[in-house]
C-alpha cells in the first residue's frame, strides 16, 4: 500500500488529524465558523507538540511536518473562503480560493494525502467567478536570493532548487534589486490568479457565485454538497425581436428585408448553468 506521507509517524499523526478535520468540516457545514477555528487550532497544537517531541529531526519527518502544516493552512483558507463568500465578499473570497488552491498543489506535490474532493469542488467553484483575464508582470532583477541559504539561487554555490523541500522548508527565490519593470501583460494562464480587474461585490459579474452563496446560506444545501457545474445553452425569447411582415425593412437597421435578415432570430441561445448539489458525507470528503 502506498504511504500517504514519507514516515510512519507522520501517517499516524495524520490519521488523528483527519478525525479532527472531519469534525471541523461538520462545523463548517453548519456554518459555525468559530467552532471550526477552534478545531483547527486543536489540529495545529497536535502538530506543534508532535514536532516539538520529535528528537530525530530527520529530513523525511521534517518534510512531512511541512505537508501537515500546509494541510492545516488549507483548511483555514477553505473556511475563510466560504465565510467571505457567504458574507458576499466575493473579491476577497477569490483571493482565499486561490490560497486554498495553492495549498492543495503543495499537498499534492509532496504527499499522497487524498485531496480529491476539495480539488474537484474548488476547481468547479473557480468557474463561478467572472475572472478569465489576468495581469502578469515582467521585470528584470539583479538576482534571486535563496530563502534557505541566502545565496544566489541560480548559482552553483547554492545547493537548493526552488520549489523543493529541505528539512521541512521550501526553497523559494526572492527577487532582489529590481532593475526595471519591463511590461505588464494580460494573460489567461498567470502564475498568480490574484492579479485581476477588481469588480464591486454587488456587481452583475458575481451573479452566479452570489446565487450559490445564497443557496447555501439559506440552508438549502451544505457546503460539502456543492460539487459540480453543468454548462449548456438554452433557447430564450430574443427581447429585441420584432415581428414584422416578411418584406418589411428589418428592425435591426441593416437595410435588408426582414425575411433576409432577422426573421430566424425570435429565439436565441443563452448560456445556462446548472449548479449541481449532491449530498455527501464528511467521511467521503476527508477520505
Amino acid at each position: 500500500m502506498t504511504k500517504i506521507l514519507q514516515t510512519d509517524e507522520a501517517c499516524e499523526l495524520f490519521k488523528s488529524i483527519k478525525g479532527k478535520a472531519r469534525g471541523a468540516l461538520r462545523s463548517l457545514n453548519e456554518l459555525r465558523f468559530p467552532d471550526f477555528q477552534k478545531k483547527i487550532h486543536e489540529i495545529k497544537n497536535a502538530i506543534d507538540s508532535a514536532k516539538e517531541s520529535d528528537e530525530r529531526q530527520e529530513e523525511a519527518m521534517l518534510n512531512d511536518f511541512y505537508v501537515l502544516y500546509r494541510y492545516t493552512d488549507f483548511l483555514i483558507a477553505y473556511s475563510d473562503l466560504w465565510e467571505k463568500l457567504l458574507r458576499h465578499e466575493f473579491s476577497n473570497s477569490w483571493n482565499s480560493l486561490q490560497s486554498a488552491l495553492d495549498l492543495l498543489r503543495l499537498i499534492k506535490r509532496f504527499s499522497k494525502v487524498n485531496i480529491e474532493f476539495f480539488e474537484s469542488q474548488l476547481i468547479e467553484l473557480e468557474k463561478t467567478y467572472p475572472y478569465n483575464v489576468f495581469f502578469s508582470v515582467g521585470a528584470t532583477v539583479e538576482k534571486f536570493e535563496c530563502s534557505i541559504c541566502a545565496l544566489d539561487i541560480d548559482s552553483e554555490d547554492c545547493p537548493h532548487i526552488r520549489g523543493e523541500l529541505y528539512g521541512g522548508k521550501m526553497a523559494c527565490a526572492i527577487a532582489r534589486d529590481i532593475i526595471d519593470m519591463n511590461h505588464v501583460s494580460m494573460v489567461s494562464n498567470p502564475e498568480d490568479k490574484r492579479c485581476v480587474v477588481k469588480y464591486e461585490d454587488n456587481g452583475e459579474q458575481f451573479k452566479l457565485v452570489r446565487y450559490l452563496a445564497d443557496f447555501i446560506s439559506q440552508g438549502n444545501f451544505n457546503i460539502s454538497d456543492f460539487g459540480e457545474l453543468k454548462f449548456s445553452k438554452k433557447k430564450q425569447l430574443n427581447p429585441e425581436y420584432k415581428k414584422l411582415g416578411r418584406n418589411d425593412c428589418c428592425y435591426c437597421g441593416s437595410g435588408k428585408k426582414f425575411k433576409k435578415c432577422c426573421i430566424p432570430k425570435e429565439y436565441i441561445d443563452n448560456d445556462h448553468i446548472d449548479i449541481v448539489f449532491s449530498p455527501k458525507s464528511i467521511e467521503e470528503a476527508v477520505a
Partner: protein
Amino acid sequence: MVVFEPRDICELVAVDDDSAFKNYLGSDPSGFAVVPEKYPDCEGHVLPSGSGDFAKWVKRNAPEIKVQVNKADKHLMLRSGEYWLALVFLASDVTIPVYLNIVANYLYDKMKGTLKGEKDRVHLSAIYEDKKEGVSKRFNFEGDSDSLQKAITKFKLNEFMDD
C-alpha cells in the same frame, strides 16, 4: 470565453549571426550551455528566472550531461504560469531530441502537484550545428508536453530518415 488562446510554435530557422555559437563549439564543449540573450526593451543580456535552477536540475537528474551557465547582465522575472527556458547552445554530443527529452522530464517533475485540468506550457530555443548542411540552426518551440513529445518524435524520425 478564452481571450488569448496561446499558439504552438515548432520551427527551425537559420541563425544569422552564429559567431557566439561558433566560439562555443571552438572550445570543444560537451553537453550544453545556457546562454543569456537580448530581450525586448531590456538593456544587456538576460536569463529568464529559473535558468540556474534548470541547470542544477539537469546536473542532478542527468549527471552524464555537462551543463554550463553563462553569466547574464540581469535576470528576467516573468509572472506568467508558463515555463520560459533560456536559449541553449548544444554541443555535438547532445542532439535536439536528447535535449527535448531532458526538458520533458524537467516539466514532468515541475508539474507534480498540478490540479485537474491544469496544463503545462514551455517556451524554449536551442541552437545546434546541422552537420549535414554545415550550418547553425535555431529551434524555437512553444507548446505543452504533448506537443513537445510530437516534436521529439518528428526529430527522431528525421534522424532515422537521414541515416
